[in-house]
């Protein structure tokens, strides 16, 4: 196992999203990231549960990269949660197998950061709006790390998008090192 980071890409119209393409582009050469394009894998929403669970078990940091549809995610990610985070796997008897792993939401939002404040038209911060994910991770014993948010993803210049994408890459790199994702690999190699 060489990849330690699983990037679940969840975007129904990825081909038209500059921001998400740029983000993916930016991390393309990180050899320890495994990209799993959910809409490409499951166009009919027929999720291969065993495959998804195995991918989770094989990785330490799980990224969910998605647009911030209706203050949440595209529907396939919800279906993914309902099916993959099953009893006996993610929780309940024989569950909690994901405990100790890290959960990261990497989202692209159309509006500006100011709108996600009590006086902005979106009223709540993205941190607050992402609480269901945070609580889900928490319930499964996973550690929810500070989300990555690209604001105004559709309106900022290409250059700005690329800059944001670079920030995304840096964030993942820093997480990869600070979270000590490679420790058990080193152990394996040592033994």
């Amino acid at each position, binding site marked *: 196992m060489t990849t330690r980071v699983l990037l679940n890409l969840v975007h129904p119209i990825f081909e038209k999203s500059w921001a998400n393409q740029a983000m993916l582009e930016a991390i393309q050469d990180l050899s320890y990231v495994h990209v799993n394009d959910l809409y490409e894998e499951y166009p*009919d929403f027929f999720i291969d549960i065993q495959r998804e669970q195995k991918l989770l078990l094989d990785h330490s940091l799980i990224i969910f990269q998605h647009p911030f549809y209706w203050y949440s995610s595209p529907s396939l990610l919800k279906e993914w949660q309902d099916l993959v985070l099953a009893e006996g796997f993610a929780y309940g008897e024989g569950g909690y197998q994901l405990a100790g792993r890290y959960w990261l939401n990497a989202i692209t939002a159309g509006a500006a950061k100011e709108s996600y404040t009590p006086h902005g038209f979106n009223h709540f911060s993205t941190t607050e709006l992402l609480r269901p994910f945070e609580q889900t991770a928490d319930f499964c*014993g996973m550690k929810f790390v500070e989300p990555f948010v690209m604001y105004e993803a559709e309106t900022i210049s290409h250059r700005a998008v690329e800059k944001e994408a670079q920030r995304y890459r840096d964030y993942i790199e820093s997480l990869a090192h600070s979270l000590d994702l490679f420790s058990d690999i080193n152990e394996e190699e040592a033994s």
Partner: protein
Amino acid sequence: MEEAGFLYQAFVFLAAAVVGVSIAKHVGLGSVLGYLIAGMIIGPFALGLVGHDVDDIMHFAEFGVVMMLFLIGLELQPKKLWNMRMPILGLGGLQVLITTLLLMLLSLAFEMHWKMALAIGMILALSSTAIVLQTLSEKDLLRTDAGKSAFAVLLFQDMAVIPMLTLLPLLATLPVETSVSVGHTELEAWQQAALVFAVISGIILIGRYLIRPLFNWIARTGLREIFIATSLLLVLSITIAMEKIGLSPALGAFLAGVVLAESEYRHELEVGLVTFKSLLLGLFFITVGASINFEILMQSPWVILLLMTTLIVIKLIVLMLLAKQFKMSLIENFVFSFALAQGGEFAFVLFIFAVQNGVLTEEIVSLLTVVVALSMALTPVLLIICQKIIVPKLSFGKERREFDNVDDGDTPVIVAGYGRFGQIVSRILRSQGFDTTLLEYDAVQIDLVKKFGTKAYYGDVTNEEVLRVAGADVAKMIVIAVGNQEKSLKVIELCRKHFPHLKIYSRAKGRREAYEQKKAGADFVMRETLGSAVILGREALMGLGYRKYQAHRTATAFYHYDSQHLEDLAEVWGDKQYVLKAAERAEMLEEVLKADQRGSKVMRQAWNTPVSYEEEEGGESVTESNKDDKQAPDNKGSEESS
């Protein structure tokens, strides 16, 4: 052995049919040839398992031909028949006329009396309805232009038998003790005509107004065998009536079929009769094979072979010129002409009749009978030669102009085969702005889709040049939607060899065909029935009370796992372990469907039970407060919204 009972005879014929036809089919010769060869082998001149009473059996078996025409009539609504009047009268009429004249001239060259020559010309101008139609339908050619035209000609010939029977006694040159005739030729001509008119009107009127209530009444008994018996009785009555007045029973049956084509019992009639028809027709072919007189053939083989060749060649030439005149495409022309270039079963009857009436001598007739029978036996062979050798030759090389010039060649997708299947694929692609070049080999289909404003091109996709003209060099993909495995494989191989950049998406009949296509190099193979069967399965589950989503999931699961298994098993396809592995997989699939995670157990809603990871692990104080939040979600929600 010849006196042996009915059961023994039935045994011989059935055994010959089973052995002969199954072998012929497996080596690709078609059933007709199988029957004919089986007949020759059991006939009096080879094994002698059946005796000289073959003629009687043949007469009985001709009933199969009658039934065949009845069934064809059932498929042909009067309107369609009316639309065919031009080919029937024009093509058929000219064929009979010109062939008769040419054969007559040839006979005159042998210093025959002109009356004899005319009789021979007329009789030999006829072709074999039974062999032609059976062979064409087996090859799926009846719906093509060639098939339809051939049918039209045969229909005219059947009608032409009537005046021939009337005319023959007038051509007598030899002394006969008593003039024998079929039917009521001793009647005055006008009486005869009136009788014919009466019987035909009778058939039409009865078919129109009496048969329906009759079948309705019979159908209500709920006894299938009585229904079938009634159907048989109907055809039999027509046969007897027609024979009584000296008309072709096949023609009468055909007429009755047409009259009944619009009745609601049409399909019942078809289903009831089709087995009898096939068996009797088979028996008929066997008797044709058995009646070939090898003694005469052996006595003068060269004469007979020469006569037969002459007959076939003359017929071919006439047919080809006519087909050209009627603007058939070259390939259709060849199929049409090769199909009809033989003598027919009517010749046997007419020859005997001619001898009885002192028109022809016994000697000539026995010779010509062999010629006709041989030419009939040769028809399936001729058609095979035509299809396997001549047509492919035509498609290649210089005759390319025969195909439509494809003008929008620069399209990204070629769709080969524009039937129902290809249409759906193409419409989906076009809806997304992809241009598709449509190639179709069935002229009828092309005309049909033209009415809906779609242009499909006539062309044989198994021809490299046609593919090239359609833009295979620049296209990105070819969709092979032809429903013929042999052709599909050929196209796949052609594309792999000459257009390796093309993505090949192809349609397969079943698993076996799918494996073969994969092996040949197709990128994606779809079994043609899988999608629709899965959807039907899904709907069936719904019909049994499943909620739609669960039905959908089960069907989708089947689709995914079955497709995956196909991929996996493709590697062992052909090996001994295949069957074992396939059975294993099938079992696995059932297990998976039974245990579909979403449906099998009601999801325990984790967030409603106050046990989370921390508590399981000994608990941290944080979760307590979380729990409180969760227990009053409604309050919180209303606070927020207010």
